[in-house]
């Protein structure tokens, strides 16, 4: 069986990889968008926090024998807590300054985290076994579908849409959206905006850590796993524009798929295709696909 002259198994598996990458793009750019919405800061440490999420899971398993399912909860909590501490002690001092200082601070933090983990674990990757429940795969007839990979897509999308639901449909989400529009008035209405900001940063960081745990069995767990990914995610964010939550999810998934397709038809370009799309979008629609002109 062939699709556009490409064996369907190859086509399917590349599309699946694209879908998985897209899920990671979606969940990471979602976190960036939420943080940016309320804090006006681009969290450069997002990649490092994703990496630490994966490492916490790996350390939990190898040192303490804590299994994957517990790590899926524990790691985002721990890294999210670290995010809360960072926000309370450092980021908070920068809100009155130019937004670029937030970018620079989180860049410095990213260097510190990556340096520390590289010193401890070296640059070679550690492998993390797929949990027993999700081992093996299903033969779909035209391709072989590893269960874990299907699980990653389902889990990532569930979290993404759950977040969307929370922001768009709940009271807390309403506060958050109002705070994004005009924090002063929300504060004047008696809502604890600083607490909301802390919570938001913690949640965005926890999303990154969650993605890290999901990624651990697929990619090698290594100190540098986040830094190259985060630059692609930045391009995704530029393409989508940070105005809309659903926009970041859709853009992330779509670009992952396009990347997968490029790997089938023109593998050499797969590393740069997202950047090329970014250039085209900037020329045609500078505010991004879902962005508002600001």
């Amino acid at each position, binding site marked *: 069986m062939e699709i556009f002259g490409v064996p369907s198994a190859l086509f399917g598996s590349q599309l699946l990889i694209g879908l998985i990458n897209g899920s990671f793009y979606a969940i990471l750019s979602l976190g960036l968008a939420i943080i940016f919405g309320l804090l006006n800061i681009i969290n450069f440490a997002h990649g490092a926090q994703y990496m630490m999420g994966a490492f916490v899971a790996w350390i939990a398993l190898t040192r303490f024998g804590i299994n994957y399912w517990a790590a899926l909860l524990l790691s985002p909590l721990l890294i999210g807590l670290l995010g809360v501490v960072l926000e309370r002690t450092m980021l908070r001092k920068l809100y009155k300054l130019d937004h670029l200082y937030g*970018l620079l601070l989180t860049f410095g933090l990213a260097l510190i985290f990556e340096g520390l983990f590289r*010193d401890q674990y070296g640059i070679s990757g550690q492998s993390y076994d797929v949990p027993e429940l999700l081992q093996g795969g299903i033969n779909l007839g035209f391709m072989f579908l590893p269960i874990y990979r299907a699980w990653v897509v389902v889990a990532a999308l569930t979290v993404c849409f759950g977040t969307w639901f929370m922001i768009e449909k709940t009271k807390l989400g309403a506060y958050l959206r109002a705070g994004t529009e005009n924090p002063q008035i929300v504060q004047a209405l008696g809502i604890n905006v600083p607490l909301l900001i802390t919570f938001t940063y913690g949640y965005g960081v926890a999303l990154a850590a969650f993605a890290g745990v999901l990624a651990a069995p697929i990619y090698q767990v290594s100190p540098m796993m986040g830094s190259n990914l985060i630059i692609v995610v*930045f391009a995704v964010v530029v393409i989508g524009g940070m105005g809309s939550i659903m926009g970041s999810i859709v853009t992330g998934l779509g670009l992952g798929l396009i990347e997968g397709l490029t790997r089938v038809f023109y593998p050499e370009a797969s590393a740069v295709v997202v950047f090329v799309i970014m250039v085209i979008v900037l*020329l045609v629609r500078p505010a991004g696909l879902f962005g508002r002109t600001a």
Partner: protein
Amino acid sequence: MQSNMSALERATPLIFIVLFVIGLAAPFFIYPTFLMKILCFGLFACAFNLLLGYVGLLSFGHAAFLGTAGYVCGWMVRDLGLTPELGILAGTLAAGALGWIFGTLAIRRTGIYFAMITLALAQMVYFLALQIKATGGEDGLQGVPRGHLFGLIDLSDNIAMYYLVFAVFCIGFFIIYRTIHSPFGQILKAIRENEPRAISLGYDVAKFKLLAFVISASLAGTAGATKTLVFQLASLTDVHWHTSGEVVLMTLLGGLGTVLGPLVGAATIVSLQSELADTVGSWVTVIMGAIFVACVLAFRRGIVGEIMALVRRAGIR
């Protein structure tokens, strides 16, 4: 306040003369290669500062200009047999052209988006450098000959090479200084302070930003091409985003929007790196990150900025 400011300004030519003399004498006291590295990164940081310090645009992709110019210069000198001065010129022009492309795209957005766009474009350049055969991939371009300046002066002598680098630095520095202190520079500062107002005064802001970006990129290229000649190597490190981050750190540490700050920052970081490389290994990244955090949280004026503030305060008393 006004008279104190002018006191500082009156001292400026004196400071430049002293620094120039130090620069002339330095290779007889300090290892020339080390000095050349400082001057190359100093020019790189000064070029970067023109954009961030005076136009308020944070480019997170300046490594692309440094690296591309290095590759172009290395390729022309080694494989086409060009003389070193033509190699530097070619590198500068190549970086300027790339800067025009980057600039055209990136100035469509401002602030944080500008930083992310330049970073993403530079990453694209990195991937291209990794895949294209002409750059030598992971190996880079090795064994680039220093050659003979104007076909006459042998640059394999470290002292001769040093004076070429020093001359290149001085020319680049002068161009930046003149740009900042020209009417053009005043408009750049106006854009930094209040862009809508500059637009309402009738200035074509996009054009000014683009020109500043091209100047900055070209001079970053000059630094990169010169660096390739000094170390006889053009490598992937120079196009990596780590280098883009490093130049931000140098500028921030030395003093954002000060004329001499980037040079001081570059000298500090380069010295620190060579001190630390032997003793602490991979902790260098951690220390660089910590300096970053400290600068942003508590030391935003940078070294030169703090000194200037001190002098001003002393003047008042």
